[in-house]
């Protein structure tokens, strides 16, 4: 079956009143769980699994897709308003998004993320429908050596968030790398830096660290510097995108979607790397007129790009699941187990043997995407009212929200101890002008880079030249060098000409 007739069949199936109701319910639930830092789409779908005993496969998968896409939308809302990322793909969104919200631009930030999510979700879903089977074969060509060099490339993005002092920024980065070491080492099965605490065996959750550093640290710092008697309320400003905002958002959306989808397809890709690269790209490509907004009052490009990258990557993650039956994320794994409840064994033949189901699923992704933007845009006005709460109460609320959400990750008291310990650390980091974003970048990339490096070296029997003799990794390494020294060389070159 070719893609077009497949889509036609899928839309025919999905457009029934019952299925649309499932999609709406899924989008609603997904948005709700995306907002909470602790609960992700995988857990929500797991909780919904019993419905597979009595609802037909089409209805159930439409519901699940709604939850999955909805969570990607919801995650950015709290990133922007409360500086509290709901899931790891929204961490980078908080960098500029929260600054925009603090400077009276919460409305445009939420709007650009909602529309950007829609644009990228549509691009990504088109990618699943038309490129899926082809692109996944390319993705399989990349091995641990290429992944390691991809992460080297992503490390370059740290330079965009280092702040005024490289020494302070790199100290933060190494603190993040240290946090990333906690837990059982995958290659040897031995625990590292766990101090006999079983909760630490699985490492420290990156969303937890982001919430601690961004939200708790900021709240504690505000409390430290708050002057009693002064009732401050943040400015809310206009809600929708101005023509200028739209113009500034368009290319970041496109670049973000273009970066995100292929990373999502990669079996070890995920949503974090493309959001980092997109942020770096937007910061370097931004019109010099707006460049000072980055890191100060918040630049809309820095929200539009990463949000688009996040949603396109989320769509890409479904490609290996649908075309090869390989679960590359927790959500994909739980969806595959739902297939099994229906006696369908997902594998490379899924597309041909279950064509009707797969195309209905893809069609329902389009429908969920439209529903979500319709659902979320009017909500922008409602959401920004949160910021009308006076500052002390607002930050108290953020602390309560961060605490509840963190406890929801695994109902563990140890997590709360980590949250507040790191929150206090982050408060002092703010006081002494250490940037917190490199901590999160180090923590995400460090463990992935370490595992990929050791996997690559095990395969090559300890031969380090593998990173330059494999064409893929050599090209990526070259790109990393260009990204690192290119802007400086270009700057020097244009300075000499001027």
């Amino acid at each position: 079956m070719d893609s077009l007739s497949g889509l036609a069949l899928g839309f025919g199936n999905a457009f029934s009143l019952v299925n649309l109701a499932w999609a709406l319910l899924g989008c609603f639930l997904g948005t709700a769980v995306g907002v909470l830092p602790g609960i992700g789409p995988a857990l929500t779908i797991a909780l919904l699994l019993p419905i597979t005993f009595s609802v037909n496969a089409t209805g159930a998968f439409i519901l699940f897709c709604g939850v999955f896409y909805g969570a990607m939308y919801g995650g950015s809302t709290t990133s922007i308003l409360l500086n509290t990322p709901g899931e790891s793909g929204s961490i980078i969104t908080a960098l500029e998004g929260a600054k925009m919200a603090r400077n009276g631009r919460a409305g445009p930030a939420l709007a650009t993320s909602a529309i950007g999510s829609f644009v990228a979700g549509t691009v990504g879903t088109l990618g699943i429908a038309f490129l899926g089977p082809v692109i996944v074969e390319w993705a399989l060509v990349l091995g641990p050596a290429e992944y390691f060099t991809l992460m080297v490339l992503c490390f370059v993005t740290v330079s965009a968030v280092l702040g005024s002092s490289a020494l302070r920024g790199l100290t933060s980065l190494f603190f993040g790398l240290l946090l990333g070491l906690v837990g059982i080492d995958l290659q040897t099965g031995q625990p590292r830096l766990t101090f006999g605490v079983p909760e630490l065996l699985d490492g420290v959750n990156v969303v937890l660290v982001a919430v601690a550093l961004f939200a708790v640290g900021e709240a504690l710092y505000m409390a430290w510097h708050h002057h009693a008697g002064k009732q401050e309320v943040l400015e809310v400003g206009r809600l929708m995108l101005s023509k200028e905002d739209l113009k500034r958002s368009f290319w970041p959306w496109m670049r973000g979607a273009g970066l995100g989808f292929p990373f999502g397809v990669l079996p070890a890709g995920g949503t974090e790397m493309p959001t980092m690269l997109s942020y770096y790209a937007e910061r370097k490509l931004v019109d010099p007129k707006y460049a000072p907004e980055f890191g100060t009052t918040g630049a809309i490009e820095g929200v539009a790009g990463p949000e688009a990258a996040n949603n396109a990557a989320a769509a890409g993650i479904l490609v290996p699941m649908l075309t090869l039956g390989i679960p590359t994320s927790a959500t994909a794994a739980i969806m595959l187990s739902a297939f099994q409840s229906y006696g369908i064994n997902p594998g490379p033949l899924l597309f041909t043997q279950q064509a009707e189901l797969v195309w209905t699923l893809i069609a329902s992704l389009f429908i969920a995407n439209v529903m979500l933007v319709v659902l979320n845009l009017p909500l922008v006005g409602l959401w920004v009212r949160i910021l009308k709460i006076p500052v002390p109460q607002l930050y108290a609320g953020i602390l309560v929200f961060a605490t509840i959400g963190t406890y929801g990750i695994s109902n563990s008291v140890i997590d709360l101890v980590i949250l507040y310990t790191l929150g206090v650390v982050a408060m002092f980091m703010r006081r002494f002008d250490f940037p917190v974003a490199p901590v999160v970048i180090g923590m995400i990339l460090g463990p992935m880079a370490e595992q990929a490096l050791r996997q690559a070296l095990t395969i090559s029997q300890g031969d380090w030249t593998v990173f330059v003799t494999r064409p893929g990794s050599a090209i990526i390494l070259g790109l990393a060098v260009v990204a690192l020294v290119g802007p400086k060389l270009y700057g020097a070159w244009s300075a000499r000409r001027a």
Partner: protein
Amino acid sequence: MINRRTLLAATAGLGLAPGLAQAQQRFASIYMFVPANPGGGWDGLGRAIEQAARQAGLVGSFQFENVGGAGGTVGLPRFLAQRRGRADALMVSGSVMVGATLTNKTPVSLQNTVPVARMTDEAGVIIVPANSPIQNIGQFADALKANPRGVSVAGGSAGGTDHIILGLMLQKLGRQPREASFVAFPGGGPAQAAILGGQVTAGISGWSEFSEQIKAGRVRALATTGERRIDPAVPTLKDSGIDVVATNWRGVFGAPGINPTQRQALVDLMTAIHASEGWRRILEDRGWDDAFLTGAPFEEFLTRDRADTEGVLKDLGLA
């Protein structure tokens, strides 16, 4: 809203009606603790038990909690501490946890729980990418014997069942298990991708994870690791002259501090689930091997399994 409510009502009706006719309810509710994330093998077993028990009307409702990570050793202490003495609590576990408690040197292990029943058993399979020059298990064994470092093998976490199988094979081939070039991947997905993409020489994993890829001709199955053949065309390691039998068993365990009568009630429940028509269909659909075992034989099995696992892990330098 009416639509949703009717559907939910229909859900409840479908779940209970046939069951009430078949058997009497043994438990009003069961608290099922899964020390792994949703989507994995343990989670699948827990939810399959729910499906069969509810269809047969044996249990009114199930409450699930997933606490994943580190081969179940993050969740295990939580289950032991929070569910002590609860007669309606079950934890899903299996051979992975036996290995993980040994390599992580945790202060608690499955010995602190009350064994209820072993339910399923899954053999591993050794596969190579479809375009690999290695055609059969004999050639693979020769390559391993000649230079284990040159034969990279992908699998799950270090010290897990896949790693143990490779270690046992090297032992039987007269090499040191420590010479293994084992490449650990987090979870089945990335490992499958590395094997399909030919990034490694071979891979070891559970049969069910690869059965569809084998059927589709994307990978070649060299041998399975159970006592009996799963696919008549694929020999077992034992058939091929490598005396290794290692499988990934899964079962359920009760909370510490329950009395023998309460334990017997859980064993009776699992026996009834095992005897149900729904369970038989699930085993068939999922391709799981029935490995039902309770009481003293199950306890003996556990002691033996722990000793065997510890021996191999010591040889691998992990315990």
